[in-house]
């Protein structure tokens, strides 16, 4: 069985992640930040540990400005709905996931001005195009760090520089990169970074969030939800400080126990080391697929310029059939279709047929890549 769906969620998880969750369920268990007893305090320590671990992976200066939510989607929605107002202008790219495009379509119906900057058919964004799109009313630039379809890495350092120069906020969707690709929130001038906890940070599903930089005026940030925070309990008004303003209700403390362990595991291996391992595998996969007649690869086809996610099609075989055969006949699990990213597929020229996506992960191996390449070669032969 070969799991090549790590771009959807990483699996398996490091053993320490499952152990941390079990330990939490058995020995801690209490609601963090509500009561003052020993288990509640220990639970709060666990949650705070997750803030520190995530901040460390991303080089975010203040762990209290790491806010947690259910997933990267919630982090993106918090940034977009929380900060954009009618009359504001926002710029995004044509490679975005629906977690950015769908909130932006709602905002655009309600008076936010939206510019979608086109990318090349490889999914590559030209920073000059971005800069040309800026207007006096531009309040935010929102970019995916790496495409969930082709793995194409967007030039976020340049984009951050442009945003800073034009005094506009810079939001990065790091769902595909946090933990797998070097990110420096501080050096890259990132004001808002949405992350997934359950992909390359190796935590469980149910974790993710938003890193909020100090250029973001928290008084202007409207949370998606209000409720009990364990703070300012005398007041029927939401507290105004981070992280509480954005974290109403009981947090997913057991999930965050797992995320803390996952992020520490990433730090112990080193993001650079993980990246080097994945680049090598991606290179092998790209070269293997390129050698097969009838296979078309999308994206940069260059491991230096993409994550360990590779999209392709097989001549004469629908992606849905390829997905079914890979699962049934070869035990290879991947994701076919449009990957919740219709804009990206339009950019790549693969709409509406979609692609077959292999998402490699931290536990993928050279042997798995070779087996998968052989399977694709066999399918391509049959289809031709």
């Amino acid at each position, binding site marked *: 069985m070969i799991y090549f769906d790590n771009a959807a969620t990483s699996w398996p998880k490091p053993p320490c992640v499952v152990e941390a969750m079990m330990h939490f369920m058995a020995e801690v268990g209490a609601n*963090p*930040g509500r009561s*003052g007893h020993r288990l509640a305090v220990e639970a*709060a320590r666990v*949650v705070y540990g997750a*803030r520190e671990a995530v901040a460390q992976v991303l080089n975010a200066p203040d762990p209290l400005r790491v806010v947690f939510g259910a997933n990267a989607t919630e982090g993106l929605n918090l940034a977009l709905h929380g900060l954009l107002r009618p009359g504001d202008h926002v710029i995004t790219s044509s490679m975005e996931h629906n977690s950015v495009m769908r909130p932006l379509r709602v905002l655009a119906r309600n008076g936010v001005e939206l510019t979608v900057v086109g990318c090349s058919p490889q999914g590559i964004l030209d920073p000059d195009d971005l800069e040309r799109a800026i207007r006096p009313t531009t309040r935010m630039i929102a970019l995916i760090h790496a495409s969930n379809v082709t793995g194409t890495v967007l030039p976020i350092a340049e984009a951050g520089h442009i945003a800073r120069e034009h005094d506009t906020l810079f939001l990065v969707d790091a769902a595909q990169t946090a933990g797998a690709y070097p990110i420096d929130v501080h050096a890259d001038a990132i004001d808002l970074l949405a992350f997934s906890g359950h992909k390359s940070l190796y935590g469980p599903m149910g974790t993710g969030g938003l890193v909020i930089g100090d250029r973001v005026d928290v008084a202007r940030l409207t949370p998606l939800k209000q409720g009990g925070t*364990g*703070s300012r309990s005398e007041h029927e008004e939401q*507290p105004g400080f981070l992280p*509480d303003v954005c974290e109403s209700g009981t947090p997913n403390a057991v999930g965050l126990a797992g995320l803390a362990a996952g992020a520490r595991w990433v730090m112990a291996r080193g993001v650079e080391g993980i990246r080097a391992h994945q680049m090598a595998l991606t290179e092998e996969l790209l070269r293997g697929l390129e050698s097969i007649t009838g296979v078309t690869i999308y994206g940069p086809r260059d491991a230096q310029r993409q994550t360990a996610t590779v999209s392709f099609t097989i001549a004469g075989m629908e992606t849905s059939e390829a997905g079914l055969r890979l699962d049934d006949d070869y035990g290879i699990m991947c994701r076919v279709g449009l990957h919740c990213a219709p804009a990206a597929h339009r950019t790549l020229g693969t709409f509406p047929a979609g692609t077959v996506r292999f998402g490699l992960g931290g536990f993928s191996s050279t042997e798995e890549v070779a087996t998968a390449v052989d399977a694709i070669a066999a399918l391509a032969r049959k289809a031709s």
Partner: protein
Amino acid sequence: MSGDSYSVILVHSTSHAMRIEKLLGERGVACKMIPVPRQISSDCGVCIRILQQDVEPARRAVAAAIEIQGIVPIQGGLR
């Protein structure tokens, strides 16, 4: 411990309390999370109890990193 006198560091949020616990721990200042004494107003249900003699080291440890609501002495009972 019954002869010791204490102060508490008041914070906005349990998350802030956890950050302070970490900072104090790194500097060897002993502390304990306790429910906020009710005669003291605070945003948060917990506060950080420290020995009276540690008030100044604690203030220095915390100052640059995080905004607190104050450090106030407490009486008696909250051992």
